[in-house]
């Protein structure tokens, strides 16, 4: 195994996470029935003119996208309190909201700000949470996502995943003019940054558990290779470049190993690569296609796709070896597994009775399979780090877009580019 950084290429090439032009835009595609009514009042602004970001708007949009909250439209607000003493709880009870968020943005000079906010229980007239965050112009959106995470956790008891990132591949142009780009954006599609651009395919981005590195497959040398790239610096290291397939990288939960697919022995098999020692260990031995390893959160087993039984199905294999156990039996195509953080549920790609490829969730304890998406050619499911939403790729009007759905399939939204296609989404772990 070669362990080479190409400093010369890096120097010429890398602009670590440079801003990309094309933003993803979000549209909510299905309902919010049973969502909790909440009011997020426009935040007070202590500076001249208009505030640099609509923090309350970002918080409300985050909560809406979760499907668990129905923020009150601004036009329906009877008052817009900024300070706790300005709140008339009776007004808020009258419009039927259970909870209320107020706050303000205070400029501190030189592009620095303080954002403080409070969350109230309207019926008890009591404060549930409140924080003050120092931030900057560039990080105001991130601070707003942090506020949304705190509100979400205070009211649902589960950790919010708004202040997270998504990685994805975009493609523009046709035929020989195709341009591939690996991007990272905020979880709401804003603030896209380019990780890598290539005239040859880029595939299978995978987040390290600390969310600081991406492993991916690149064909830039007209052969498949796997790189690990540090996002902050843009430095990258080639970790796999064998004859045949170098694909499907997946990080172990401790971040020290990659499971991957190689066909150097003449057939697609799963290997584990130790990143410290570059030692490679072969895990599967079967003439079928074995690929798409996904680590269980406890790091003790892998789920992978194999057609050893005649059609692609998911199997589970202990890291220490042993016989793979088949997990999926419904239908002739189950692939592309991603573990929920609870280790009990798998998101997967399932071909239904009509031949449509759809995202489904399988409960590993009960064996039940629930369909989550409704497209014809959906693929690449990826769980949010809190396990509540699944991001996947779908097609609308023949064009690739990203979609997110709640695990129960109740809520849906799409993220699309102005031009070109978006695919292979990977939701980051929690940041920090």
């Amino acid at each position, binding site marked *: 195994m070669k362990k080479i950084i190409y400093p010369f290429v890096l120097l*010429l090439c890398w602009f670590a996470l440079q801003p990309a032009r094309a933003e993803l835009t979000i549209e909510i595609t299905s309902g919010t029935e049973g969502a909790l009514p909440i009011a997020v009042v426009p935040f007070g602004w202590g500076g001249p003119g208009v505030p640099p970001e609509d923090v309350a708007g970002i918080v409300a949009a985050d909560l809406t996208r979760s499907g668990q909250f129905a923020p009150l439209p601004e036009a329906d607000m009877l008052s817009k309190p900024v300070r706790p003493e300005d709140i008339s709880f009776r007004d808020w009870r009258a419009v039927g909201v259970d909870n209320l968020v107020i706050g303000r943005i205070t400029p501190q000079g030189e592009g620095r700000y303080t954002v403080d906010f409070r969350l109230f229980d309207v019926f008890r007239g009591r404060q549930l949470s409140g924080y003050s965050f120092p931030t900057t112009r560039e990080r105001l959106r991130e601070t707003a996502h942090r506020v949304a995470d705190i509100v979400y956790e205070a009211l649902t008891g589960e950790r919010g995943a708004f202040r997270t990132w998504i990685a994805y591949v975009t493609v523009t142009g*046709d035929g020989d003019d*195709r341009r591939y780009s690996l991007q990272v954006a905020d979880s709401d599609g804003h603030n896209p940054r380019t990780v890598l651009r*290539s005239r040859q395919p880029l*595939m299978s981005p995978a987040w390290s558990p600390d969310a600081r590195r991406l492993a991916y497959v690149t064909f830039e040398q007209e052969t498949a290779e796997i790189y690990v790239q540090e996002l902050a610096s843009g430095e990258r290291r080639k970790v796999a470049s064998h004859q045949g397939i170098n694909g499907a990288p997946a990080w172990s939960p401790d971040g020290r190993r990659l499971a991957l697919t190689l066909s150097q022995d003449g057939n697609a098999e799963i290997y584990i690569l130790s990143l410290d020692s570059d030692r490679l260990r072969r895990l599967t031995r079967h003439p079928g296609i074995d690929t798409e390893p996904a680590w269980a959160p406890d790091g003790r087993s892998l789920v992978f796709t194999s057609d050893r039984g005649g059609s692609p199905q998911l199997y589970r294999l202990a890291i220490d070896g042993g016989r793979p156990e088949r997990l999926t039996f419904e239908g002739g195509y189950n692939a592309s597994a991603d573990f929920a953080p609870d280790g009990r549920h798998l998101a997967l790609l399932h071909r239904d009775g009509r031949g449509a490829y759809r995202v489904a969730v399988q409960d590993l304890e009960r064996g039940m399979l629930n369909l989550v998406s409704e497209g014809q050619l959906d693929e690449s499911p990826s769980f949010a780090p809190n396990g509540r939403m699944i991001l996947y790729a779908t097609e609308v009007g023949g064009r690739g877009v990203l979609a997110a759905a709640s695990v129960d399939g109740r809520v849906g939204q799409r993220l699309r580019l102005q031009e070109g296609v978006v695919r292979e989404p990977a939701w980051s772990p929690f940041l920090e």
Partner: protein
Amino acid sequence: MNIRIGLVWTLALAVLSGCGTMDKRDADDVAVEDRGAATGAEGAQSRGLGADGDMRGMALDDPDSPLSVRTIYFEFDSSEVAAEDREVVAAHARYLSANPQQQVVLEGHADERGSREYNIGLGDRRAQSVRRMLEFQGVTPDQVRTVSYGEEKPAVEGHDEQAWRQNRRVEIVYMDQ
């Protein structure tokens, strides 16, 4: 090192494309590289080498030869070379055996349905299947390299069986020395 290989490839491909046998392709691909110099060299070299009048190039160029068929198509989820294509593969095997310096890349492809990495597996299996036929007929392993692009480089855009049929394929790509 990488850059140099990339350049050699670019030149090799440019020569073949000059002969009219190959798609014009570009090995020098990472967007961020300085492409100006390489492009210049490519153009100049292409003319220089093309004028040498390569005999092998002419054999490969004959439109009536089975060697002019460079794409083998496959059934859904299958990597079996169809009976009518076996003679095509055999012709390439004979040519490669007679020209042991000649190298080919077998590019395996799949249609867009299903998982991308599984499709990489399918494309690889198709390329391996052609490789085994070539090697069985005397081509040495050193002459053949495989790469699977899965569904990443469709020959035809489109979301119906007609497009899918044309995308399930192995392309035999001749490299220049």
